[in-house]
């Protein structure tokens, strides 16, 4: 963020496409209602910790409501429910709840998102195939809209509840939510790891065995021909080798006696921080391929019931603060799509396409989704999801992703808006056929149409 004339430059986690907005940090719901009532056509939207990769939490020329001061949480009650203010980060929440044995019901790959952001993006975790998305564990929430403060749940104005769950902040500003937490005995995981030489075999293993695990995720190597040549020489397919890790929370009796501590402990603070100035091009084809190679070789071919620290299992990147700076000034993007269960071929085609285009990509994340939530803009649908990080400077990237969009839309899949910074509006409608439901809720709670973001403008949602 930089100070500018009457505002701040804001960009997403991908660090591309910064726009300027006036940033306000209200202390409570009243303050937010005031800002909403003052807002005009230039727009207003909420922003948490800025972890959306694209332009979801910025509003050029308008107002951005930074929820940083809207923080705080109650204690988890005996039934496992907790009331959390929307600006509270998942990190803060677990530091408070984990020592009492309560963990997040769903956690994305980082704890550095706010509860409001987790709801607005309806984030998912490694347990989506079993437990669904974040919103499924939200019992109720309070939303500040231009027409007033509303407490909603499935039973009470379920329409607004679901339009907000995954609604990218376009229904108003979530101020507080009641979450159902997950009870855990320890801060350890029991993890099975398997290594696969290609995408076919890892997908087959996931289809066959995922249901036996609460958590499952595969990391797929999409780096292309550099190593493929060597692999071919050894008579192995090169693209799409993968490491699959699956597991569940360890119970006390699963641990060796010396590890049986009394209470689960909260995560460590990050030990490393990427400096502000990173030379250009640190992450290039060669370095990314080398990283992917090392990471693949480090994984065992097959290992069962390894005891792993919970925090490393869920949030490996949280150990390095500001890691997005590694991509340099040009920034990067993450492309994540989901396709129905029968369309695993689209995942294959996407990995092949990226590697054929020689687009450097860090380990891609492959996962199976369970049932979707009722939210019209909520991303997960039953089937497969693939997510990958790509530096923005990569040649031919824009056209390549446009082709993938068409493939995904034709297979009745969609891309994840929390990661998006480049989708075309006409393709969006094919991916999310229920946009009209979102519009009708927005017209009801925001008749003036003031809640909007750069993302909503780019995608023609206003």
């Amino acid at each position, binding site marked *: 963020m930089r100070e*500018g004339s009457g505002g701040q430059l804001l960009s997403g986690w991908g660090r591309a496409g910064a*726009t300027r907005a006036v940033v306000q940090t209200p202390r409570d719901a009243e303050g937010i209602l005031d800002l909403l009532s003052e807002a005009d056509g230039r727009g207003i939207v909420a922003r948490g910790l800025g972890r959306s990769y694209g332009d979801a939490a910025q509003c050029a020329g308008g107002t951005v409501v930074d929820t940083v001061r809207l923080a705080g949480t109650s204690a988890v009650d005996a039934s496992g429910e907790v009331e959390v203010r929307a600006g509270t980060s998942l990190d803060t929440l677990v530091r408070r709840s984990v020592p009492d044995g309560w963990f997040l019901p769903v956690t994305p790959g980082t704890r550095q998102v706010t509860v409001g952001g987790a709801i607005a993006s309806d984030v998912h975790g490694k347990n989506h195939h079993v437990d669904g998305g974040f919103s499924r564990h939200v019992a109720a929430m309070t939303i500040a809209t231009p027409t007033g403060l509303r407490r909603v749940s499935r039973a009470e104005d379920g329409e607004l509840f679901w339009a907000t769950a995954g609604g990218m902040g376009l229904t108003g500003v979530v101020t507080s939510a009641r979450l159902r937490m997950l009870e855990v005995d320890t801060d350890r995981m029991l993890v099975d790891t398997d290594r696969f030489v290609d995408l076919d075999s890892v997908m087959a293993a996931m289809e066959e065995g995922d249901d036996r695990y609460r958590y499952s995720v595969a990391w797929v190597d999409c780096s292309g021909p550099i190593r493929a040549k060597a692999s071919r020489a050894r008579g192995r397919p090169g693209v799409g080798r993968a490491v699959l890790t699956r597991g569940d929370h360890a119970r006390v009796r699963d641990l060796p006696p010396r590890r049986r501590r009394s209470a689960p402990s909260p995560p460590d603070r990050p030990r490393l921080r990427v400096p502000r100035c990173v030379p250009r091009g640190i992450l290039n084809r060669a370095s990314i391929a080398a990283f992917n190679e090392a990471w693949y070789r480090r994984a065992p071919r097959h290992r069962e019931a390894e005891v792993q620290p919970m925090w490393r299992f869920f949030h490996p990147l949280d150990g390095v603060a500001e890691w997005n700076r590694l991509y340099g000034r040009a920034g990067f993007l993450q492309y994540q799509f989901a396709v129905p269960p029968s369309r695993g071929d689209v995942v294959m085609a996407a990995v092949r396409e990226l590697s054929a285009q020689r687009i450097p990509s860090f380990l891609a994340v492959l996962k199976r989704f369970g049932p979707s939530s009722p939210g019209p803009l909520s991303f997960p649908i039953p089937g497969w999801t693939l997510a990958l990080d790509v530096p923005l400077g990569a040649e031919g990237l*824009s056209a390549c992703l446009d082709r993938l969009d068409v493939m995904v839309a034709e297979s009745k899949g969609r891309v994840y808006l929390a990661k998006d910074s*480049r989708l075309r509006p006409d393709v969006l409608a094919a991916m999310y056929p229920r946009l009209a439901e979102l519009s009708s809720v927005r017209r009801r709670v925001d008749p003036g149409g003031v809640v909007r973001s750069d993302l909503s403008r780019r995608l023609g949602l206003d």
Partner: protein
Amino acid sequence: MLDAFGQPQSAVVLGGTSDLAGAVVRALAHRRLRTVVLAGRDEERLRSAASSAAAAGAEHVRTVRFDALDVNDAARAVDECFDVAGPVDLLLLAVGVLSHREDELDPSRTAEVVTATYSWPVVALTRAAARMSEQGYGRIVVLSSLVAVRVPRHNFVYGSAKAGLDAFSIGLGDSLLGTGVIVQVVRLGRAPTKMTEGLPDAPMSTTPDAVADAVIAGLGSRAQVVWVPAAARWALALARFVPQSLWRRIPG
């Protein structure tokens, strides 16, 4: 809005009848561009530029008229373009009049070249920068020329005006730091267009399509200066060291 690759959905083109601008607009319309306002002097040529933009995929094409010799009208013309377009993602400036050897000692012709190539664009860019600052974002692309880097003997009037515009644009970009508005200067070799008809082939020449490709790649890079052809950057870096006594003997 601009996407992560800097590709616009809406654009205003000052000098919308220029061949180079036409090539850029068509390339943008093949990607994300949906709304475009073409501004220029000649009504007929504006109409034909508009229909080729529409044929390339732009859904909303409008035209605005202005005269680049009327400096006092520049701010009005820019305002009209912005009012017609709605939020403007990209402003492309492709305005200028080339000087010919026989004009260079004709004061009234010199005044025209300098007004259309420097004065009008400077006023227009100043207004556009203010409008984009209000928006909180935007991209300004100024078509400059390799002759702006070191002014050649054969068209020094035009070259000096482009040098001034180039320097102004860089300064404008610096002054807009923190506003969300980015200014990019595209330094072009000579392209075969209406403007250069009848001129002999020049070294480091380019084509309208190469210019369009470079502009599109430049939008993604956010570079302050884009060179077309790319190698011109190094050739011009060397040219700075050529002594003037030698430089003035280079035929043009």
